[in-house]
């Protein structure tokens, strides 16, 4: 009996778990939506299965829950963690074991349960590694910057001298005794 080439590839993938993928659809106002036809995105994993990648995404979102932040921002983190894990089979095994330790059903549990399960592993290198990568990557991409209001580089736009460096008006203006003149006036 022969198998089609596709079946053989899929069965190898099933055995090795190496073709995990995360998918999503960008929010309509996402800064990336101009570049993504139909706003649908997919991020392939090098080390994690789809199941493990979804657990990881859910873990990252539990570490840093920002309602309304496009999942694409979280996918950046998952991709970075997956890439690091793909560097060696030890790293890959450690990550997979860690994700298994918080439960295969992690992503469908409610927030209180997910927090509780993460607290139980908080002292492990696995948790601390995922937390650190979350802090390193989640807030360092255009999707997050648009969401949190951070405006990024300023030199090419002439700085903030005429773009609101002193536009706060819910407190009194600082008198001349404590500050210098605004050079632009």
């Amino acid at each position, binding site marked *: 009996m022969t198998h089609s080439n596709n079946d053989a590839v899929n069965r190898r993938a099933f055995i090795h778990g190496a073709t995990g993928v995360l998918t999503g659809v960008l929010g309509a106002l996402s800064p990336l939506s101009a570049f993504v036809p139909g706003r649908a995105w997919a991020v392939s994993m090098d080390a994690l299965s789809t199941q493990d990648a979804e657990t990881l995404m859910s873990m990252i979102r539990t570490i840093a829950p920002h309602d309304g932040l496009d999942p694409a921002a979280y996918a950046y983190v998952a991709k970075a963690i997956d890439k690091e894990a793909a560097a060696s089979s030890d790293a890959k095994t450690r990550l997979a074991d860690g994700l298994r330790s918080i439960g295969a059903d992690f992503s469908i549990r409610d927030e209180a349960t997910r927090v509780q399960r993460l607290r139980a592993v908080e002292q492990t290198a696995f948790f601390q590694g995922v937390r650190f990568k979350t802090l390193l990557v989640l807030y360092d991409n255009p999707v997050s910057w648009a969401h949190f209001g951070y405006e990024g580089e300023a030199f090419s736009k002439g*700085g*903030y001298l005429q773009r609101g460096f002193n536009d706060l008006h819910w407190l009194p203006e600082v008198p001349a005794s404590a500050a210098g003149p605004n050079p632009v006036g």
Partner: protein
Amino acid sequence: MPSFSLDDDSVVVIVGSGAGGGTMARELTRRGLKVVLLEAGRRESTETFSQHPGTAFGQLTWLEPRSQSGTWGPAMTQPSLPAWHCRTVGGTTVHWTACSPRLQAYELRARSTYGAVPGASLADWPIDYAELEHWYDAAEKRLNVSGTHGNPAMPANNNFKVMYAGAKKLGYKQVHTSRLAINSRPKDGRGMCIQQGFCVQGCKTGAKWSTLYAEIPQAEATGRLDLRASCIATRIEHGADGRVNAVIYRDESGAEHRQKARFVCVAGNAIETPRLLLMSESARFAKGLANGSDQVGRNYTHHMTGFIWGVFDKPVHSWRGITQSGVIDDENINDPKRGFVGGYHLEVVTLDLPTLPLVGLPYGWGREYASVIDNYRNLAGMLVNGEDMPRSDNRITLSKTVKDGFGNPTAHVNCDEHTNDIALRAHAQAQGKKVYEAVGAKQVLFGPTPPATHQMGTARMSHDPAEGVTNAHGQAHEVPNLFMSDGSVFTTPGAANPTLTIVALVLRQADYIERQLKARAI
């Protein structure tokens, strides 16, 4: 740029191109001396500076890991990064926030003023404020410090408006937009500040003073500066007469070279300077070059620091504009009734979004932690900068566990916080909280102590060769043609950000060197 011969023993070798070394290079070349300036880092420019914080960090920072011990925060939270300083032409003047206060007269007399503090190695500086005043004037003019000598003060940005309003409600009186080495108008061939908010990533208009573009090109213009970038000094050699006569260094390819020297100025900062002296031990200087006092590396101070964040329900947009845009100076006094000696400044600060969770916020995760970042638009921030107590065992030694790429030991930093430091920080953070609550903060957080950005004290000045490494001119007691030209000479740290004092001392030291050369004393 000339290329002086390795065998030219009429050159002066300066190690390090930061506030001390870069300024000294200009001072010596304009006096007619030939200078070889060794800088471990690469030469960047206003064109190559990046306003992506992660990229800039990799580009400018001294990244070689060090080892640590002790009870202070970064020993546990950032074990291989006790200090955040630069490794680049211009040194830490490339990423500094330009904060340029003077030390107070009493801070130069710390031992006499504070008395004997158990567990601290307090001492009076061998120079007093009257001696330094002229040099502070010269340094402020050199750096175009705002609010001094006719330079306008900087305008108030949003982050400072919040500090100012809260501070006035508490009754603080010395609240202003800081003494900053930043051009508020074009001057000395450099641009003016356009309030970008990326001071820490290198100033792309050159408005902020840095030796990279305000001292070194001027030294090069004399035709007497040979700047060797990506060249790290590994040993200083001396002759049988005990005078230094050469500096060994490694270039970018790892090849070793020996540059002869008439005299040497070491300005690697208060971590790398003692490391170099310790690596230069010899039969005559068994504890390290110029270390008969055993004080090389000891008495390391870095200021007591900690972040204070106010979360408001209205926008602040604190990242817009100068990073260190204002200060409360009232607590820069000695008032033991507060529960500690020495004082502190409360300095406005902001952090870009990627850096805030990594460095600025206390440990945490989950919904409450995330809610602070959800409020990024509405955050105001300040950083305590206070006097920490020098301690004999807070010191730089050669690491027993970590080596650099050449197989040399890197620096080991041991730092135990003193109870005075802890009391000072608690007071400062409580005061900062009151400032923000006075204008409606719905939440105030205290961030962790970050890696040290100010390094001082490890080759301290003293009249007594048994108590200090250098004399009142930063000249090594035991080696008359060896000078320290950086913050390692500070006898005690005071509460002032150190750069202005480093420049003042270097201007004075250059004047002293000139007189010594004329008198043929060195």
